[in-house]
């Protein structure tokens, strides 16, 4: 399975690969020249005194070695080259697959696990293509060439010697079978180790805040030791088989000297032929010795390749329709018809109905966990609704090309992720070719320009991953600027100004008033001040819309919205009056 899979990637380079293998064959043949020449020097030059041959022999040896090392260098580079290309292709496919996988996948898979596939597992695959393939071939070739030579010299003796190989093959197969699961558990443990370290790094602030360094070290040590244990378990399997394989390979020599010796004594073989046998014996021994180690490498590859294959085979639930509507420039009207959404068995949204005309502003308010973010996630098709349908411009969003749909929508998410890039790069994330003026415009509109200019490096300030180093309010404003710059038909602001002080929020709202007018805007917020001017306010509770309408209408209902209003304003009024008056 895994071989068929990897062959698919090697196929484009099959001619290069073939050339490499031919060169390997050449080098294997040349490798036999050297011992042969040494034999001649000892036999004929030194013992028989044929000194005239010496220069020629040395010349041949030097030439053969030079040629061999050139060929070897060249084919090593060929295999490296092929492996790098294969490596790059597979890694790009994984990357591409990750970009296509939906939120559901990222909700369920740990970053450390995915990283382990992209690093450790890919390394095993690379090593296989770059090294294992030609080593297997080279050893097989040397073995075959030597075996042929021996058969030519004496068929029966050669048969006797080869008789040991089934035993070797049997042990080799046993090794392969037993070692494979240990490599699988090594790489699973590698994944766990990776995840523990990765979370420790990402969560370093929490670790320090609670002085839990010791606990983290304990947690880490557990995985670290387990990783060592898994490796040693694997070594215990090698320990069982490799010495056996090694000794069996050596036993070829014993067979040769005993059976061959008797044959010579019986005169069915000449002494000279036995000597010739002896000089080729290493060419049979060595490949058999290598077999065990190569099997290890192959099984290691196979364990890793399976992980990569399963990642590549993961299908996103969100799929592009077969004949997608590829319309540019959606206008932005949004309609929810009886929309329901469940996460596993949990009902998150139920029976959601509303219509937002293009250019309207819809505000969503409601308790924590009532499903506000889910509503907007469904519009972007980050998840598919499990009931009902969502229409944009009157078209079911499942019929629209996913990329086109998302291109017309811009989201400032609640959970802000900034990239370790400059502030300018972060704001221009959705529009990489934006001019600096445009970036500045977006930053000003989001109320971020001022504080950005306060940094010594201004827009060139590099922010860390997750925007660490910036305050919550600053991150929110950069995320807002990033969303604004995209100039979308549908703008979604998910709790975007919660950490921004009121004064700044007011400024932002004033600037954005005209911006909102040209597009459909969804605002999720907790402050009445952020939502009261909306064309439509949805009040969500436990996944249902419990109230909807405009500010005044909702106040008149004297329900949830009214209560929130009283809490935010009434409270304020009383305090204010009490203190000032």
């Amino acid at each position, binding site marked *: 399975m895994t071989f068929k899979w990897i062959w698919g990637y090697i196929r484009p380079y099959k001619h290069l690969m073939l050339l490499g293998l031919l060169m390997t064959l050449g080098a294997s043949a040349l490798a036999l020249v050297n011992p042969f020449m040494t034999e001649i020097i000892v036999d004929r030059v030194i*013992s028989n005194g044929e000194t005239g041959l010496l220069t020629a022999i040395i010349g041949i040896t030097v030439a053969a070695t030079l040629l061999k090392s050139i060929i070897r260098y060249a084919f090593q580079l060929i295999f490296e080259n092929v492996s790098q290309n294969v490596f790059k292709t597979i890694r790009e496919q994984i990357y591409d697959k990750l970009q296509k996988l939906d939120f559901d996948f990222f909700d369920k898979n740990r970053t450390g696990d995915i990283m382990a596939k992209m690093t450790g597992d890919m390394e095993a695959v690379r090593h296989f293509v770059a090294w294992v393939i030609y080593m297997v071939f080279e050893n097989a070739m040397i073995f075959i060439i030597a075996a042929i030579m021996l058969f030519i010299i004496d068929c029966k003796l050669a048969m006797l010697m080869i008789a040991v190989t089934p035993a070797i093959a049997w042990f080799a197969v046993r090794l392969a079978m037993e070692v494979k699961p240990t490599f699988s558990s090594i790489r699973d443990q590698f994944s766990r180790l990776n995840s523990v370290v990765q979370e420790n790094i*990402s969560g370093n602030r929490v670790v320090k805040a609670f002085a839990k360094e010791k606990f983290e070290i304990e947690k880490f040590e557990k995985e670290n030791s387990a990783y060592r244990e898994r490796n040693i378990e694997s070594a215990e399997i090698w320990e069982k088989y490799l010495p056996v394989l090694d000794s069996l390979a050596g036993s070829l020599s014993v067979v040769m000297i005993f059976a061959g010796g008797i044959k010579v004594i019986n005169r069915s073989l000449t002494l000279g032929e036995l000597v010739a046998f002896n000089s080729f014996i290493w060419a049979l021994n060595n490949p058999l010795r290598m077999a065990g180690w190569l099997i290890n490498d192959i099984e290691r590859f196979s364990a890793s390749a399976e992980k990569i294959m399963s990642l590549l085979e993961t299908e996103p639930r969100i799929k592009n329709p077969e004949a997608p509507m590829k319309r540019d420039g959606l206008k932005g009207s949004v309609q929810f018809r009886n929309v329901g959404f469940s996460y596993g068995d949990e009902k998150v949204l139920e029976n959601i109905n509303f219509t937002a005309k293009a250019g309207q502003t819809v505000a969503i308010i409601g308790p924590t966990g009532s499903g506000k973010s889910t509503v907007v996630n469904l519009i972007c098709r980050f998840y598919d609704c499990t009931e009902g349908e969502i229409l944009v411009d009157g078209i079911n969003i499942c019929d629209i090309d996913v990329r086109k749909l998302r291109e017309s929508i811009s989201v400032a998410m609640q959970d802000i992720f900034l990239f370790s890039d400059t502030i300018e790069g972060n704001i221009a994330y959705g529009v990489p070719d934006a001019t600096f003026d445009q970036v500045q415009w977006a930053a000003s509109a989001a109320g971020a320009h001022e504080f950005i200019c306060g940094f010594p490096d201004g827009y060139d300030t590099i922010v860390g991953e997750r925007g660490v180093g910036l305050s919550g309010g600053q991150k929110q404003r950069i995320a807002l600027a990033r969303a604004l710059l995209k100039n979308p038909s549908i703008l979604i602001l998910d709790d975007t100004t919660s950490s921004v002080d*009121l004064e700044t929020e007011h400024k932002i709202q004033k600037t954005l008033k005209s911006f909102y007018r040209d597009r459909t805007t969804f605002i999720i917020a907790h402050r009445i001040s952020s939502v009261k001017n909306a064309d439509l306010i949805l009040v969500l509770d436990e996944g249902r819309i419990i109230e909807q309408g405009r500010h005044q209408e909702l106040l008149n209902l004297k329900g949830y919205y009214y209560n929130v209003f009283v809490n935010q304003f009434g409270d304020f009024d009383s305090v204010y009056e009490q203190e000032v008056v």
Partner: protein
Amino acid sequence: MARNKFDIDEELTSPFNMEHALRLLAYLKPYKAKIFITVVLMLISNIAALSGPYLIKIAIDEFIPQKNIPGLGLLSVIFLLTLIISGICLKFRIRLMSEVGHRVVENIRSDIFANLQKLPFAYYDSRPHGKILVRVVNYVNSLSDLLSNGIINLITDLFSLLVTVGYMLYIDVRLTLVSLAGLPPLVIAVFLVKDIQRKRMQALSMKQSNVNAYIHESICGMKVTQSFGRENENFRIFSELGSEYRKYWMSFVSSLFIMWPIIENISVLGAGFLYLVGISQLGKGVSVGVLIAFVSYIWRFWMPITNLGNFYNAIINAMAYLERIFETIDEKPLVDNLPGAVDMPAIQGYVEFRNVSFGYDEGEKILKGVSFKADKGDTIALVGPTGAGKTTIVSLISRFYDLDSGTILIDGEDISKVTLESLRSQMGIMMQDTFIFSGTIMDNIRYSRLDASDEEVIEAAKAVKAHDFISGLKDGYYTQVNERGSRLSTGQRQLISFARALLANPRILILDEATSSIDTKTELALQEGLERLLKGRTSFIIAHRLSTIKNATKIMYIDKGNIVEHGTHAELMRAKGAYYKLFSAQYSLLEAM
């Protein structure tokens, strides 16, 4: 502080030196007995392996011509025995070396990880996390083979080289010198290639680090990428990074693979030279026997040298990683326990700042001589514009940074003189940036106090009004959540972090915009309970909602690194200063919006 991103190579601050190799050896020290046994085993198995050709020679030269079949049988049995002996040696060698190799790797990794725990926020903030991750996991892994088989081979090869040279000298000094003639050109070649290889490997490891950083960040930021439809652009960047990596890889291996042919050709030339000299000297002090012996020794001489070449390649490979690894182990923590630091006794809750000045970067003061006192049980609210220094003040109480000047006292103790753990474990901090570990909600809340019972965890969740939503989930407190708390809304994550901070039963509680994403209703419910929660604890609250602030014992208005005003809500309103302005401005803003 200079920050790093995925496409900037990290500069190496420490140059290559022998120290790294020596430090590596120090890691091997605890296992010296095992290594010694392995070397002995290797020598035994080498001797066993050497006896094979000798036995064959005896058979061909003596027993077969003499038709001595029993002798041949005996020889074969001895031969089999040597095979079994070397098999047993191999078995133990595999066991001992995998043990040593992986233990050393485990120890090095522990050291890196332990040191990472001491490093300040700034270390993590100033570089992509993917770059730190690969150091701890992948780089250390790449050492394992070098440490297990590499070192043993090195020792045995050096040993057999010495033995061989000794034998050669014993037989004939002149021919030995001739045989060694190949060494000087080899040494010169190695020195010529060495620097190139090392530089290329370093360059490669930087590129590798960049690719990994980009992958890591791409995974973490995938939701943003998808929502902005930037997949093509990212793929293009990734592909470019990959091409660059491939280029550096090829450049590295093309310099790496050159070593072997050089050794091989020099060795063959050397052997040829030996034959020429030896044969021309035949009869003039060099006998046929001596020459035949030399012919076999010359290969035993060059074989370990070739192996050393392989070892050298491995070490070149590892050096670039080793430099990064030791750099991380050596990274100095900015804040550490002072020598003789004592444990902080149970905190009462008196906090005092005396003329505290602090800046993250040199020359840029964030706080300029801040002084204040908080009594046991006080609730201190910090207000003021963004960037005024509010978060900085609360970070200093936990001693996340050391002061430039001034002192912070808790219960009259200078916090820089107590151990960090005893100080921080008595505080509960809830930060703006919530982090949820993968595991259950129960585990996440329990994080702050590992010995808390389930009931205590649930109690804390109830106190912060998180119980309702948690018990609404299918698996309740045992719901699996992951790293960024996917599936939970930001508000829910804040509630979990809040419960976590509270469970620690801290004497000092710090809430840095703890409730910004929590809805008004929940927040109100929270407020009611909060008063009870804060009782007896000194707390510091940073918030934008004035309703959260106005009940504080003391409100401090921070601007430009100083306390501009302080007092109760009523006092400050009467004073009609900055706080009053902020309050009335907010009021009118609310009206206007």
